[in-house]
C-alpha cells in the first residue's frame, strides 16, 4: 500500500481530539496502522492458545468461547503477580504529562495513542469489571464492560505501542506504559490475539534458535560469507568458531545482524574485532547456532514465552563451558538481559565473574548476570589502548547517535557508546536536547512492530526521531545515524529514507570494524560497505 508523501503526512498532523467522549469512539482498524494476524502454525508449534486463521478486518475474530472470562481471570491473576500492574491500574491521576511524549501520538495525532489513554483502555476494564465502585457507578467511575468492540480497540492500540518507555520517565508516579502494554499483550495472547510479525519469529526462535528461522548450516554459511567479504576488503579471512566447547566467551547477537543490511555490516564489525582479538591476544570467542538469537520476541508475547526463549543463552553457555557471555548490539535483547534474564533463568552460578582477559577489567556491573555488552567491552579495550584504530577510515562519516530505547531507558547505557564513537570517528554531533539519552525517541518499529503492512504508523511514529536527525542533517550535514539496536538498523533505514533522505544507518561496531587495523592486512581500498575509503578516490 502506498502511503502519503512526507510533507502531506506532516501537514496532516492534528493533535486536536474529537469532541465525542473517547469511550464512544470505537476503534476503526485502519490498513497501514495494524499488523496482520498470525496464522495457526506458529501458535501450534509453541503451544499458544486459539490457533486459527483470522483477519483483524473481519467482523468475526473467531474468539474462543468464554473469552471474556479468560481475560478477566487473567487480569486478576496478573494484578496479584505484578505489583507494578496493580499500582499502575490504581493511581493514575490523568495529569496528562505523558500525553504528548509518545512518538505515535506526536506523529499520528490519534488521541488513543496518548499513553494515558492507552492505559485507560485497560484501566476502564479493570474498573468496570473488577472494582466495586466501577461495577456500581459504571462510566461515572470510569468503568467499562469488556465487549468485543472494546477488545478490538485494545488489540489495535496495544500493537501501536512500542514499549519504549519514554512516557514513563515523565510520569510523576513512574507509571510504565511498557509494562502495561506487555501485560495487555499477554492477556490478548491468552485468547489468540496476536500479530504474525511477532508470533512467527517466536516459533522460529524456539525451533531454530533465531527469529528468522535460519538453520544451523545456513547460519554458518552466512557468517562465512561475511568472512569472504572481509577477506576481500582486508586480505585476511577471519575464522569464527561455532558451538565450540571450551571457548572463553560465548557471543550472542540478534539474528537481524546476520541477515539484513545494514546490520550485516555491524556483524562484519564483530567478526573483524573478534579476529583481531584472537590474533593479538588469543581470545577465543565462539558463536552458537543454537543460541543464535539475542532478540527475544517472547518479550512482546508473554513473560512465559520470554523466559522460554531466553533460557537458551544460559543453557548454551553452560553446555559450552564458557567463562561468560558477550552480547551484541541489540535493544530489547538487552532489556531482557538487564531486567529479566538473571531473575528468570539464573542464577548463572556456572559462569565466572566477567573479567576482560585482555585488560583485566572486572565488569562489576554485570557481576550477577555475567553477560557483558559488546559496546562496554570495546569501550574498555579502547580505554586501555588495546585496539589499533585508524579513525581516518571513517572520515566520510559525519555521525550522530540514536539512543535506542531499550539500552537507554532500560539500562541507562549512554556514555559507553559515545565513548566508542568518539574514538572511531572524527565528526560527531548530538541531536537536540529532549530527543536523546533518557528522552530518546523510538525508531517507530520497536516491540515487534517493524512489519511492512503497518508502514504508515511506523513513519508517523518514526517522525520525532527522524525530525531530530533532520535537524543535525540540515545544520551539521550529518550523514550517518549510528545506533546499537538491530531493529533500529532495520526500521531507521526505511524511516530516514522517507523523512531525511541522504542519511544512512549503521551500528557502532561497523565503525569500529572499519577503523580497526588488522595485523597483516593489505592496503585497503573500501569500507565494509564496499564504498571507496576516504583518500583513495583519486587513485
Amino acid at each position: 500500500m502506498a502511503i502519503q508523501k512526507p510533507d502531506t503526512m506532516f501537514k496532516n498532523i492534528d493533535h486536536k481530539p474529537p469532541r465525542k467522549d473517547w469511550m464512544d469512539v470505537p476503534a476503526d482498524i485502519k490498513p497501514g496502522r495494524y499488523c496482520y494476524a498470525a496464522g495457526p502454525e506458529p501458535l501450534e508449534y509453541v503451544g499458544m492458545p486459539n490457533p486459527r486463521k483470522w483477519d483483524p478486518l473481519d467482523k468475526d475474530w473467531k474468539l474462543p468461547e468464554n473469552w471474556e472470562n479468560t481475560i478477566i481471570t487473567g487480569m486478576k491473576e496478573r494484578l496479584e503477580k505484578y505489583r507494578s500492574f496493580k499500582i499502575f491500574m490504581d493511581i493514575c491521576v490523568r495529569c496528562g504529562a505523558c500525553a504528548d511524549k509518545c512518538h505515535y501520538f506526536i506523529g499520528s495525532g490519534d488521541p488513543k495513542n496518548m499513553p494515558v489513554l492507552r492505559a485507560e483502555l485497560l484501566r476502564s476494564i479493570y474498573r468496570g469489571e473488577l472494582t466495586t465502585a466501577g461495577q456500581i457507578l459504571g462510566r461515572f467511575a470510569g468503568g467499562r464492560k469488556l465487549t468485543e468492540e472494546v477488545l478490538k480497540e485494545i488489540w489495535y492500540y496495544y500493537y501501536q505501542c512500542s514499549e519504549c518507555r519514554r512516557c514513563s520517565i515523565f510520569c510523576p508516579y513512574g507509571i510504565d506504559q511498557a509494562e502495561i502494554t506487555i501485560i495487555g499483550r499477554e492477556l490478548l495472547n491468552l485468547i489468540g490475539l496476536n500479530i504474525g510479525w511477532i508470533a512467527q519469529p517466536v516459533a522460529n526462535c524456539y525451533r531454530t534458535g533465531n527469529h528468522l528461522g535460519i538453520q544451523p548450516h545456513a547460519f554458518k554459511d552466512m557468517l562465512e560469507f561475511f568472512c569472504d567479504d572481509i577477506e576481500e576488503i582486508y586480505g585476511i579471512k577471519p575464522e569464527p568458531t561455532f558451538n565450540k566447547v571450551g571457548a572463553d566467551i560465548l557471543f550472542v547477537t540478534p539474528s537481524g545482524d546476520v541477515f539484513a543490511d545494514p546490520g550485516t555490516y555491524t556483524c562484519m564489525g564483530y567478526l573483524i574485532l573478534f579476529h583481531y582479538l584472537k590474533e593479538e591476544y588469543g581470545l577465543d570467542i565462539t558463536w552458537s547456532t543454537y543460541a543464535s538469537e539475542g532478540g527475544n520476541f517472547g518479550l512482546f508475547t508473554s513473560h512465559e514465552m520470554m523466559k522460554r526463549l531466553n533460557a537458551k543463552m544460559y543453557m548454551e553457555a553452560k553446555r559450552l563451558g564458557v567463562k561468560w557471555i558477550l552480547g551484541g548490539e541489540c535493544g530489547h535483547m538487552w532489556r531482557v538481559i538487564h531486567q529479566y534474564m538473571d531473575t528468570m533463568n539464573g542464577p548463572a552460578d556456572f559462569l565466572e565473574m566477567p573479567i576482560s582477559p585482555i585488560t583485566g577489567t572486572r565488569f562489576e556491573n554485570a557481576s550477577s548476570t555475567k553477560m557483558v555488552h559488546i559496546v562496554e567491552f570495546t569501550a574498555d579495550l579502547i580505554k586501555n589502548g588495546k585496539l589499533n584504530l585508524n579513525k581516518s577510515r571513517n572520515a566520510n562519516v559525519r555521525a550522530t547517535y540514536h539512543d535506542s530505547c531499550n539500552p537507554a531507558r532500560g539500562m541507562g547505557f549512554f556514555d559507553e557508546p559515545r565513548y566508542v564513537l568518539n574514538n572511531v570517528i572524527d565528526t560527531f554531533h548530538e541531536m537536540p536536547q529532549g530527543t536523546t539519552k533518557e528522552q530518546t525517541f523510538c525508531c517507530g518499529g520497536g516491540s515487534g512492530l517493524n512489519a511492512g503492512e503497518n508502514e504508515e504508523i511506523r513513519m508517523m511514529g518514526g517522525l520525532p526521531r527522524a525530525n531530530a536527525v533532520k535537524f543535525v542533517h540540515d545544520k551539521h550535514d550529518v550523514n550517518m545515524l549510528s545506533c546499537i539496536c538491530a531493529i533500529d538498523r532495520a526500521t531507521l533505514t526505511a524511516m530516514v529514507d522517507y523523512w531525511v533522505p541522504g542519511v544512512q544507518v549503521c551500528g557502532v561496531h561497523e565503525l569500529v570494524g572499519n577503523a580497526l587495523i588488522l595485523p597483516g592486512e593489505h592496503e585497503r581500498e573500501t569500507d565494509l560497505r564496499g564504498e571507496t575509503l576516504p583518500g583513495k578516490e583519486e587513485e
Partner: protein
Amino acid sequence: MKAIYSLFLVFALILLAMIGAGTLGMEYLFGVIIPYLAVLAFVVGFMLKVIGWGKSAVPFRITSTCGQAKSFPWIKENKLENPSSTWGVIGRMFFEVFLFRSLFRNTKVEIHDGQRIAYSSSKWLWLFAILFHYTFLVIVLRHMRFFTEPVPYPFVLLDRLDGMLQIGAPVLYISSLIILAALFYLLLRRLLIPSMRYISLPSDYFPLFLIIGVVITGILMRYFLKTDIMAIKELSMGLVTFRPVTPEGIGVIFFIHLFLVSVLLFYFPISKLMHMGGVFLSPTRNMTGNTRMVRHVNPWNYPVKVHTYDAYEDEFREKMVEAGLPVVKPLEEKSENAENKE
C-alpha cells in the same frame, strides 16, 4: 458534561448537609457520626489498599533509568536518576515525593511549519501541582489548632507565618489564596485544553470540585459567614478525645465544610487520590537499577517448557554434520532422551 455531573454532585452534597444539619437539625449525625466514620474509612481504607498492593509480588526489577547507569569507574554514574545503591534510591524517592522530580522534567511538543518539531520545557503543571500539595499540607497542619489544647508551638508558628501579611481581620491566610489559584489552574487546564478534556473522567473533576468546595466553605466561614469558633473547637476537641458534643451556636456553614471533608475522606481510598500511597510503592522508582549486578528473585518463578540443545541437534544433526558444525552425538545414534524438557 463529565465536569458538570461532578459539579452537580458536589452541589448535591452541599445541599444534603444544608438540609440535614440545618433544616432537620441532625447536627449529631453531621458533626459526629459521619466524621467518625469518615476518618475510620479513610485510615482503614488507605491501609487496606496499601496492604493489597503489598500482597502483589514484584517479580522483576524494572526501574526507569533516567541517567547513566553504574559502569566503569571512568564513566560518571548518575546516582540519583539511575541509582545503584539504597542511598541513591532514597535520594531519588525524596526528589520524587517531595519535589515532584519527574513532573519537573515535563516538556511540550510543538509542530512548526517547515517540518520542524520542537520540545520546550513546560513547568506550569509542576508549579501549580507543587503549590497545591504544599498549601494543602499547610492547611491541614493549620487546622491542628482545633484538635490540640494547648496548641503546640509549631502549629502556632505555622499559623502566624501563613497570616504574616496581616491583611484584614481575621488575617488573610496566604495559603487560602494559593490553593484557590492552584485548584483553578488544575481545573481550567482540564476544561480548556482539548486533549486534557478528552482524557479527563468524572473521577478527575469530582475530587477537584470537592476540594474547591472544602476550600470555599472554609474561606466563607473564616471571612464572611462567621460562626462561633469556640463552639467549633469544643466540637472538634470532643471528637478527638472521644467525648463528642454538638455545642449550640455553630452555623450550618461549618457542617457543610465538615461534611465535604468527610466525603473527601470516604472517597480517598477508592479513588485516584491513592497516588499519595502509590508514589511510595511504585516499582519503577523505589528500587535500584543495577539488575545485572544484583540478582532479583521472583517469588513465583516457575519452570517452563524449553527447547533443549539435544532436541535441536536431533532435528538438525544431519545438516550440522554436513556443514562441519560440531555435534554431541554422531549421526547414526539418535538421542533417546532428547524430548523437550520442563
